């Protein structure tokens, strides 16, 4: 169901000046004094029907000119009630403290650490307020406006963080075979960039600590130093398994802010290519999680469809992985003449590969024994941790941005949201396999509908480059062309949170513009960030080999996790 943007009644029991209402472009916004934050949060989550059970995102913004320099922005959603709410809490520079919300939403844990790392704000009551993305020798807070984007600090080996996770006091741990092991960051099972330090009691993990940030590439700071259009290649590299969806997510956010209407042809192509990207992402995820559990053959079977989808993306955009095919206002180039034909050919070949994998795996007892009941989590807890996407749907919560908050053409096609109830590795696998089929269903319907005629990008010289022939011949178009490239698109001041269903959950972009040619602040809501923050909780009590399998099933993509 579409988000309700109707103003929510302000809770009455708080002092009058502690909450102020702002009409957001996209959702209601409240400015909240930090003193009442925890009480307010509890009240907001209280109602079982319409309570805001999901903390989508938490981020900081720096306004050096304001009296209260920082602002912490919370994005809340109510999965059952369909509401959305944005809370803004101003924080002064000389007393940068606000209460932690970790008791209300467990998912706030890593988000608060990130704000601490990036802005230096302290969250009172947070049990482990350490840097999360940058390294231990880092000084300063990089997303503050006065931090030089290129200022680096060197980390040497002796300064590296060496955690010693302690099991809780009441654990049945007789210290008999206790041992602490370090996995990663360069370990094949950790997919390159994660690090888990686990304290083992025999073979069982009794406590663990997850360390990330090994691929923190400063996306958000880079976005502030480039023009709106130049950010698109950076978004490719967030979730690099399905880069096109990131392109769409970002462009949609900016387009809403600009209030431009994307031509139907571009919308149609965006929907189809997003679905193909999703197929690709699920193939990679399932393939590599099967490799982690020893089923190597499936990797080859699942990587072949991906290779063929790359062919389609290359035909459109010229690159296989980092496509950058969207532009603000449409697409970078018109669809190739054989676009439909290629899509149809793909629709014929992909199911065969998926069938093969299903036959090999789905009721294979060896795999079932490794996957059923592993890293299980119930729906309610998963929501509290901030999960979205296929992993959440495997835990029995029926939420999909494409259906509940439809964008592009998703409300005009007929498809189902697969939901499973095991909440474990096995059901995450099955959700993905079913979603691949649903995606193909969507694509087939759109193809049958036929490619809409018309332009592939808006005809607005303030947003999109004029067509080359026009630019060569007309002085006016030439001037627009020149201005757009030199100064970038002028996005009117404002803010927007806009979400698409990424391959592993709700991929949101919170975009702030101050009216200049560059973004003031872009915050990505990375779907796997809250999911991975649960990892410790998921693997404690299991064995190391279970931990390896569960990481593969979560589909954590480092580029998006750490940006």
């Amino acid at each position, binding site marked *: 169901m579409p988000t309700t943007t109707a103003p929510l009644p302000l809770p009455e029991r708080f002092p009058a000046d502690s909450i102020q209402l702002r009409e957001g472009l996209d959702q209601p916004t409240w400015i909240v004094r930090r003193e009442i934050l925890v009480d307010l949060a509890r009240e907001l989550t209280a109602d079982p029907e319409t309570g805001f059970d999901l903390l989508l995102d938490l981020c900081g913004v720096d306004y050096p000119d304001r009296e209260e320099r920082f602002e912490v922005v919370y994005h809340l959603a109510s999965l059952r009630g369909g509401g959305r709410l944005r809370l803004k809490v101003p924080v002064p520079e000389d007393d940068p403290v606000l209460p932690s919300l970790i008791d209300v939403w467990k998912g706030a844990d890593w988000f608060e650490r990130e704000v601490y790392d990036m802005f230096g704000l302290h969250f009172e009551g947070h049990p482990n307020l350490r840097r999360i993305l940058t390294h231990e020798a880092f000084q300063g807070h990089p997303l503050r406006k006065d931090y030089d984007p*290129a200022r*680096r600090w060197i980390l040497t080996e002796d300064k590296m963080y060496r955690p010693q996770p302690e099991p809780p006091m009441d654990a049945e741990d007789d210290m008999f075979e206790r041992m602490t092991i370090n996995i990663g960051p360069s370990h094949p099972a950790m997919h390159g960039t994660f690090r888990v330090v686990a304290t083992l009691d025999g073979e069982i993990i009794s406590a663990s600590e997850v360390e990330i940030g090994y691929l923190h590439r400063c996306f958000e700071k880079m976005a502030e130093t480039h023009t709106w259009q130049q950010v698109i*290649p950076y978004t490719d590299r967030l979730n690099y398994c399905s880069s096109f969806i990131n392109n769409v997510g970002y462009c949609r956010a900016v387009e809403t802010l600009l209030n431009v209407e994307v031509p139907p042809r571009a919308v149609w192509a965006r929907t189809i290519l997003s679905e193909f990207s999703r197929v690709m992402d699920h193939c990679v995820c399932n393939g590599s999680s099967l490799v982690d559990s020893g089923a190597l053959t499936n990797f080859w079977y699942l990587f072949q469809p991906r290779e063929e989808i790359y062919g389609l993306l290359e035909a459109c955009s010229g690159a296989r992985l980092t496509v950058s095919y969207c532009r603000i206002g449409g697409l970078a180039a018109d669809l190739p003449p054989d676009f439909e034909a290629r899509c149809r050919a793909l629709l014929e070949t992909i199911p065969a590969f998926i069938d093969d994998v299903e036959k090999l795996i789905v009721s294979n007892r060896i795999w079932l024994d490794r996957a059923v009941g592993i890293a299980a989590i119930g729906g309610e807890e998963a929501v509290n941790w901030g999960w979205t996407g296929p992993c959440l749907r495997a835990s029995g919560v029926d939420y999909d941005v494409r259906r509940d908050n439809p964008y592009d053409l998703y409300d005009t096609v007929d498809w189902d949201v697969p939901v499973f109830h095991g909440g474990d590795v096995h059901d995450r696998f099955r959700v993905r396999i079913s979603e691949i089929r649903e995606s193909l269903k969507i694509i087939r319907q759109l193809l049958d509908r036929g490619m809409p005629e018309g332009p592939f990008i808006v005809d607005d010289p303030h947003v999109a480059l004029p067509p080359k022939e026009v630019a060569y011949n007309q002085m006016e178009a030439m001037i627009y062309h020149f201005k757009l490239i030199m100064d970038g698109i002028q996005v009117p001041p404002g803010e927007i949170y806009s979400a698409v269903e990424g391959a592993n959950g709700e991929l949101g972009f919170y975009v702030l513009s101050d009216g200049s040619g560059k973004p003031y602040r872009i915050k990505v809501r990375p779907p796997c960030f809250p999911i991975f923050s649960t990892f410790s909780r998921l693997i404690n009590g299991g064995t190391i080999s279970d931990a390896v399998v569960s990481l593969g099933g979560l589909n954590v993509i480092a580029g998006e996790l750490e940006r």
Partner: protein
Amino acid sequence: MIGESWVTTTFEKLEEWGRNNSFWPLPFGTACCAIEFMSVVSSHYDMARFGYEVVRFSPRQSDVMIVAGTITDKMAPVMKKIYDQMPDPKWVVSMGACACSGGFYRAYHVMQGIDELIPVDVYVPGCPPSPEGLMYGILQLKEKIERDTKKRRKREKAKRADDDGSVAAA
């Protein structure tokens, strides 16, 4: 004397031939480039055709390190350590803009090229390099190693001749 050196040089040649035709790569993959690296080893491009399929995740067993992906300052000590753990002779292929130079991340947490820390033999540009590009890079590395061995052998020969000459003169 002569017999011994003949045996050893022939054996050396055999060893070099073997090594050159079966690199054991260590993929140090961190980001998007690692995904393309997977393409190189999967069926479509299949690096095994060159004898380079024994992808080892243990630095102790490999001789070519393929750095695929962005290396951040946080990762740098780890990469250095892994490089140090590799036995000699060892080579480094730097795959992709990020590993080569930092790419478009001129940023506070990204190394501006892994050659700040470890020597690089071949740089493969691209973002990510296409699988063919990486294979081309690896084949270039092979040629480079062959060239270097030839040069080295020549030098050694000259040196031996020199030594012999000086011995004879004495």
